[in-house]
């Protein structure tokens, strides 16, 4: 799902913004995603991420979650529909 319909790109309605946090522990290592922080401003988001990860990071990056284009992922709707369809089929056999 990479379009603007992606619910993960929708802005929050409570006046805050979500920031994906990326961390590199040592210079030779790749950047890793370590979750997200939600805060009313970029400065507060930076402060939060620093408090949570500073000890482990040689570099920290923050990126607004609503700016991230995501390809692939865990298609929950597909899983849920498949399981429900499975239930219906089983019910059918039972009857």
């Amino acid at each position, binding site marked *: 799902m990479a379009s603007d319909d992606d*619910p*993960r790109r929708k802005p929050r309605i409570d006046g805050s913004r979500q920031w994906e946090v990326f961390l590199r522990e040592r210079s030779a290592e790749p950047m890793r995603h370590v979750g997200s*922080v939600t805060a009313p401003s970029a400065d507060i988001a930076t402060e939060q991420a620093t408090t949570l990860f500073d000890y482990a990071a040689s570099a920290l990056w923050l990126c607004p979650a609503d700016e991230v284009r995501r390809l692939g992922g*865990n298609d929950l709707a*597909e*899983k*849920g529909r498949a*399981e429900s369809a499975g239930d219906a089929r089983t019910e059918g056999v039972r009857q």
Partner: protein
Amino acid sequence: MISISKLLCGQTAEGDGLRYDDPDADIEQIREEKQKRPVVVWNTTRRCNLYCEHCYAGADLDPAQGELSTAEAKGLIDDLADYDVPVLLFSGGEPLVREDLVELVDYCTDRGVRAVLSTNGTLITEEKAQALKDAGLSYAGVSVDGLQERNDRFRGKDGAFEAAVRGIKNCLSVDLKTGLRYTITEHNAADMEDVVDLLYDVGVDRFCFYHLDYGGRGGDIADADLDDEAQRRAVNRLFDMTREYHAEGEEIETLLVGNYADSAYVVEYAEEELGHERAEEIHQYLRVNGGDPTGERVADVDYRGDVHLTQFWQSYSLGNVRDRSFGDIWDDESNPLLARLREREEHLTGKCASCQYQDVCRGSSRLRALAGSGDLFGPDPQCYLTAEERGVTPEPAD
């Protein structure tokens, strides 16, 4: 959750296997063994028909974008069932504003996950209670935070108290196990006992008391949190009240939630009131229980699918179930925060580092520590134990 009625009165309950690895053969258990997977709180929606002062989810009436659809919710439940999650707590916002709630509870119990509900109770009609019961719901916890006037002020709506009690009666009338959820603050500590008496007369026999955590709007009213002395008074009163009820042959179940300094304090109380041997037994139960469960035995998935370390800690998310399955997110200890929280004994500082009750408390709430001092492993400002109780002998002055 610390079961006061079990520890002080030996009352058995269906959560004993899950919580203390001590299942009672006569009572059907949620799990026979202590849980290995977390109980998951799912904030099904951010919408709510009330506007409570202490809401950690910051819920209100506006529809929120990005809520999991019915099909996505079923996909989430599949993931949780595959990961062997023992219990899913349908929470909110107010879960009853979701029209598919009964369908999802039904789906959840079909997949072998125990379904329980956290609600303000005001939307539970008798028909709804019956439908939830038929769908396999095991338990409804209804929030009431004081007697009528105080509760209605706190919850931002006149008539909320009466509506909640009506909801409780509707659940009980269809034989759905129902309990009280009560968040203790400076404003309502005085009402605790009267609320228990009133609801016991209605037929409620399970009472959960929550300490205030500093997430969502709970953070805005941190000033209304009880000071040390008031905490001790409230907790003591709950211990005494539980024993008084049991002495009368009325077996209420009472639980404390959200501050594991209570574990330490119940041992101290038992030492004083019940003797050393009993206190040691209680201490052992609490060691098995393992102290504060954040990031281990409890998890939260919010209405957008973000996974949190507890339901109160909404400002940080480990990842989103639309990106990876819940189990993959929860098992990923390459996240240094998750890894450190799970070995927090090595990192605790201040008074928690030297406390003799670290084994049953584990520093209590990391979220409150963060809010209090900005130090993730600093002391929990809500810890009310004296230095002597913590086992620290003050240095003699020179």
